[in-house]
């Protein structure tokens, strides 16, 4: 207190616009200290230390993957530059660009997410706010993998052509900065659109139309080529036609892509190779303009947040607001109520819809691999259905393994309702199980459309494996949901501060379940009795169902013994 009262005439630090003025520097230090204190405090509990360990393992694993990507990207770049095929580097830049965007959606950050809106009560200038937005969460998987890949490309090109080092460095800095700004701008705008019901509906509609469009492509491709699969003479003609079409399309795409950032990064290198300095400067300048554009897009969004924008819905008035909403599910009782709540929540959560829908859509692409002429693909063609169905179910990991995460503070109601916790878990399991089977059905349907009708024994094997995989996942999911819960922000797409411990364990369990399926099928294929997999899977399914029932029966004891943790993790004040 003495310190507080000793300097009545102390002047406040000036609040300027500079990024690194005295006040801003003090604020950065304060924030860094706050984060380090929070980090140190996380070790006070066993679960916090475990979570840190899981994050460290994840960081290591993703770093290894990132280094692998970097080595791959570097080797490819070295090979292309050594063979004087710099124009093909554009493909590498496009792959990097797409990976950069996709990874950030799919994977959570290593770091705890921090709501920067809470900083607005401090005298913080917009420049600092913008900078902090970039810095917080910088060390996410996409930036790590993207940066390591860029480093790989730089090393690869520099080893092949040391004279291109400076140009490559400049092009890659511009390219990386563009990606970093773009990822954050996309998420910031998505958060904005998903906050309003109307725009959320539009985004959902666009998403669904895209999904249907992909499927409509399928019969078109099938009409032209699929029926020719069993007619070699017609097939080669069709293949030639497709190759010609693809070349024409690629030619047009190549012209367009050279005006876009990945193409421009490549153009910088190509023009430097040809000693065309004006073109090199022009391409680099245009890349910088794109980067500034992405930064500007992010800036517009952050400026609105900085000004205290509220994304809440405007108060509704009139008769429409007074009209009673229909009940989605007829009937009463807690299980129906819980299922209806889950259904409504799902409809309003783009994040969850995205997580569930994307894998079945990706099945269309995966199925294409089986249609390719690759020898390995031909070999496993008959097992494409179970592989695609298994992949189509990956989106359920978070939903099943953290089924209480979306409750937030309402987790308290789980303990206040006059119901056993197992009733609530059972309702969630029924809902998730139904969705799981629906997604499996969709994935199976897409695979069938793409590859033709599978053999009946493969269908039976897939169904039997599902009967094992579903209860096994639900049983393990119920345990992890209680033991390692983490709060999910349903209004945010990507950048969830998920529990790495939960993610690691759920991944391990999923791998075990998939591995068990693969082992049984390999064993039966090896012995030439593929049908034998059906009774084996059914026996495993009985064990899994028993396990699920046991977990449900013990759910109350487990939940009440972990009640403090559940409330602390899910109902805590942020």
């Amino acid at each position: 207190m003495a310190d507080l009262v000793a300097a009545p005439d102390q002047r406040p630090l000036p609040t300027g616009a500079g990024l690194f003025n005295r006040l801003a520097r003090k604020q950065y230090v304060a924030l860094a200290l706050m984060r380090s204190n929070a980090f140190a405090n996380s070790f006070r509990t066993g679960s916090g230390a475990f979570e840190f360990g899981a994050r460290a393992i994840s960081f290591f694993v993703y770093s290894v993957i990132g280094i692998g990507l970097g080595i791959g990207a570097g080797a490819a770049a070295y090979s292309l530059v050594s063979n004087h095929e710099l124009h093909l580097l554009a493909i590498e830049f496009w792959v990097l660009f797409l990976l950069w965007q996709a990874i950030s959606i799919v994977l959570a950050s290593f770091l705890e997410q921090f709501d920067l809106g809470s900083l607005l009560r401090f005298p913080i200038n917009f420049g600092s706010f913008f900078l902090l937005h970039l810095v917080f969460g910088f060390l996410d998987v996409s930036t790590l993998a993207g940066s390591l890949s860029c480093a790989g490309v730089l090393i690869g090109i520099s080893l092949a052509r040391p004279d291109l080092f400076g140009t490559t460095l400049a092009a890659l800095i511009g390219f990386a900065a563009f990606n970093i700004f773009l990822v954050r701008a996309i998420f910031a705008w998505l958060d904005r659109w998903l906050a309003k019901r109307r725009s959320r509906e539009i985004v959902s509609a666009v998403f669904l139309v895209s999904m249907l469009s992909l499927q409509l492509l399928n019969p078109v491709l099938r009409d032209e080529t699929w029926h020719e699969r069993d007619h070699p003479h017609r097939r080669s003609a069709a293949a030639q036609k497709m190759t010609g079409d693809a070349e024409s399309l690629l030619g047009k795409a190549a012209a367009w892509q050279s005006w876009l950032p990945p193409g421009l990064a490549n153009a910088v290198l190509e023009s430097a190779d040809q000693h065309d300095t004006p073109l090199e400067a022009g391409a680099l300048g245009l890349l910088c303009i794109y980067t500034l554009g992405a930064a500007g897009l992010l800036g517009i969004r952050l400026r609105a947040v900085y000004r205290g924008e509220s994304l809440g819905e405007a108060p509704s008035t009139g008769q429409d607001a007074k009209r009673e909403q229909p009940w989605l599910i007829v009937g009463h009782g807690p299980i129906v109520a819980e299922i209806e709540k889950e259904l409504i929540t799902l409809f309003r959560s783009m994040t969850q819809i995205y997580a569930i829908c994307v894998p079945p859509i990706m099945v269309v692409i995966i199925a294409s691999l089986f249609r390719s002429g690759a020898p390995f693909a031909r070999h496993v063609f008959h097992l494409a259905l179970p592989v695609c169905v298994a992949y189509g179910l990956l989106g359920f990991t978070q939903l099943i393994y953290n089924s209480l995460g979306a409750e937030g503070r309402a987790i308290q109601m789980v303990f206040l309702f006059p119901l056993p916790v197992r009733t609530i878990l059972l309702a969630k399991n029924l809902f998730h199980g139904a969705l799981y089977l629906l997604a499996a059905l969709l994935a199976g349907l897409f695979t069938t459309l793409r590859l033709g009708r599978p053999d009946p024994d493969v269908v039976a094997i897939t169904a039997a494996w599902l009967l094992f995989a579903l209860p096994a996942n639900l049983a393990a999911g119920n345990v992890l949901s209680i033991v390692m819960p983490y709060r999910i922000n349903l209004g945010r797409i990507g950048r969830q501060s998920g529990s790495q411990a939960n993610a690691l364990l759920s991944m391990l369990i999923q791998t075990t379940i998939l591995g068990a399926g693969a082992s049984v099928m390999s064993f039966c294929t090896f012995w030439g009795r593929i049908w034998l997999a059906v009774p084996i899977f059914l026996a495993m399914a009985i064990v899994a169902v028993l396990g699920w029932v046991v977990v449900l029966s013990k759910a109350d004891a487990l939940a009440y013994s972990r009640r403090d943790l559940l409330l602390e993790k899910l109902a805590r004040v942020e």
Partner: protein
Amino acid sequence: MGTAAIQTYGLTRRFGEMTAVENVTLRVTQGQFFGFLGPNGAGKSTTIKMLTGLLEPSAGTIEILGRPFSAAALDLKREIGVVPEGMALLGRLTASEYLRFVGRMYGLDRETVTRRTEELLEFMQLANERRKMVTDFSHGMQKKLALAAAVIHGPKVLFLDEPFEGVDAVAAGMLKTMLQGMIQRGATIFLTTHVLEIVERLCSHVAIIHQGRLVANGSIEDLRAGVASSLPGTETSQRLTLEEIFLSIVGANGGEPVQELSWLT
């Protein structure tokens, strides 16, 4: 002395080395509007969490409506309503969806849930906002919705943790009327709040917890008389406010003088 709606014996909760609530024994009679007061961090919310099954006591027992209460006492949970700390709302549901959900979880039939949802939304002046998601509600609106959810099943005992925080004066008046109506119909209300005027106006009995221990318990008149007699120079005829009683009991004026913050403008 009437039948006890809430009775605790030696209720204690420890968090590691720290004892948040220590040996609290209290009795709330049926039909009583009971105020549970204390400074920040005194142990009010911890006590209410133990009384509602959100937190397991380290020691001691709880009886609700004359029956032993534990988190697994599901039949007793039907008889109680709670506005917990943080309100426990589901942000992605609309107000009517949330009330319908809660009503069904308490086992009410569809017609009753629909009718009560309508009545509560009208009463809480949330009917025009029924299609808005809870996450878009103001803090005060969320409080009203949390209170509506706490009473939709007609509880006999109601636990309210800071129910008036952020609620405007008009709504607060309305809520007080509703709560007094519940008391008249035989319900018991256990209220924690920092707004002592509300407690003084509504509650017949008060308990004060300080540093985890119960330091006062009785009717407001009894506390007033006790404090008046213990304060030198205070005549018994002088009517002390609840704020004065509270400050006197928790010793806010008895310690060192508060250092003035001279740098404050």
